[in-house]
């Protein structure tokens, strides 16, 4: 494995973790109940820790996080989607944490460059996945209103899920096999939550797999502006 190839994959996984961490952090002060506020902050912190390790494999973590332009980010479009209502956030967590858990479980076996991090991350993400699954069950099989919101979120985010299973240079995993297991798991959870598995295509012609190539959706620019503002206005600032 060449260094450059490992860098491509480290950026992809590191940006996923960084961007989702930032999105979850936006819930601070807004979550429906205090316990949930704490849970989302803890999940965000796990992801931030993973992002720091991954981005450090690719270069200087601060420069990569704060000084890159939008087009240089390699995260999935799924993780940059705005929080929306709580159902939206839960479904985004379900789709992503299931993928991330399955992926890290594979990366943790073997002796590739990501094995040490994956061995830690897989245990952390197991709790994120459990958290998302429990909420999916509770809200999907809850009131009419919660069911409807969950169903809407499932549909809205569905088209971003195909991108997770496009091969990434330097990631030694069978993307097809990963997708099969992911679909099986998500289908199982949604069914038990009395939700309908969306039927639409899992990537749009205009967005297909584009986050990993640096093409992002409109809300991402605004998120980055907020995330990078302080560092860019006060270079080298520290606490």
């Amino acid at each position, binding site marked *: 494995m060449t260094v450059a190839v490992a860098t491509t994959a480290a950026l992809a996984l590191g940006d996923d973790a960084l961007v989702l961490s930032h999105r979850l952090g936006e819930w601070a002060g807004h979550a429906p109940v205090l*316990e949930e506020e*704490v849970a989302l902050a*803890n999940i965000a*912190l796990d992801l*931030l*820790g993973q992002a720091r390790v991954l981005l450090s494999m690719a270069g200087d973590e601060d420069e990569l996080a704060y000084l890159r332009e939008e087009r240089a980010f390699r995260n999935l479009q799924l993780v940059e989607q705005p929080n929306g209502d709580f159902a939206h956030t839960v479904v985004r967590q379900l789709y992503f944490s299931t993928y991330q858990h399955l992926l890290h479980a594979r990366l943790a076996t073997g002796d590739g460059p990501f094995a040490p991090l994956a*061995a830690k991350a897989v*245990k952390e993400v197991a709790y994120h996945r*459990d958290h998302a*699954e429990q909420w999916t069950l509770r809200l999907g099989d809850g009131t009419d209103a919660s069911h409807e919101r969950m169903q809407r979120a499932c549909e809205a985010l569905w088209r971003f899920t195909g991108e997770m299973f496009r091969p990434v240079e330097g990631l030694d995993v069978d993307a097809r096999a990963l997708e099969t297991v992911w679909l099986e798991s998500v289908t199982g959870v949604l069914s038990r939550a009395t939700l309908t598995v969306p039927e639409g295509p899992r990537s749009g012609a205009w967005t297909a797999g584009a986050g990993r190539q640096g093409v992002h959706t409109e809300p991402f620019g605004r998120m980055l502006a907020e995330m990078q503002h302080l560092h860019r206005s006060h270079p080298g600032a520290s606490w």
Partner: protein
Amino acid sequence: MVTLTALEAELLEVAGAVPDPELPVLTLHELGVLRAVHVRAEDSVEVELTPTYTGCPAIEAMSLDIERALHKHGIRQVSVRTVLSPAWSTDDISAEGRRKLREFGIAPPRARDACEPLLIELGPTRTTDPVRCPHCGSADTELLSRFSSTACKALRRCLSCREPFDHFKEL
């Protein structure tokens, strides 16, 4: 088994006695995060530390505390290195550490082979070994929230004595 020199064993003990910044009832040795101390030159030492969670913010405070303790012990140059592998697990917490946690009101993590792997059987509790209340010892406890004040803890409540308590989650 790596053989330690007498000095390394001594320094390992000094660094291991540093209290955990978030759970000061535990030492770093009891928490199981101190991996090694290598003497590189006469007064230059390298310490290997492993984080509990990848994003654990306490790791920087731990590093500084270890440096301070070793400086005080007469070591001029101390560098603390973070190592990820092999991954830390709650099984690395010593028996003494578990006892102290319980005494402090935190239910210690269960041995990881005594509870089924977390994933991913949906449904109510799926563990064979119940989490016991650290106050009264009752096995009749329920989960309130999977995430508590820090990533490593869950919030539970005892159904016998009604007290809420933190549970150090198995990892």
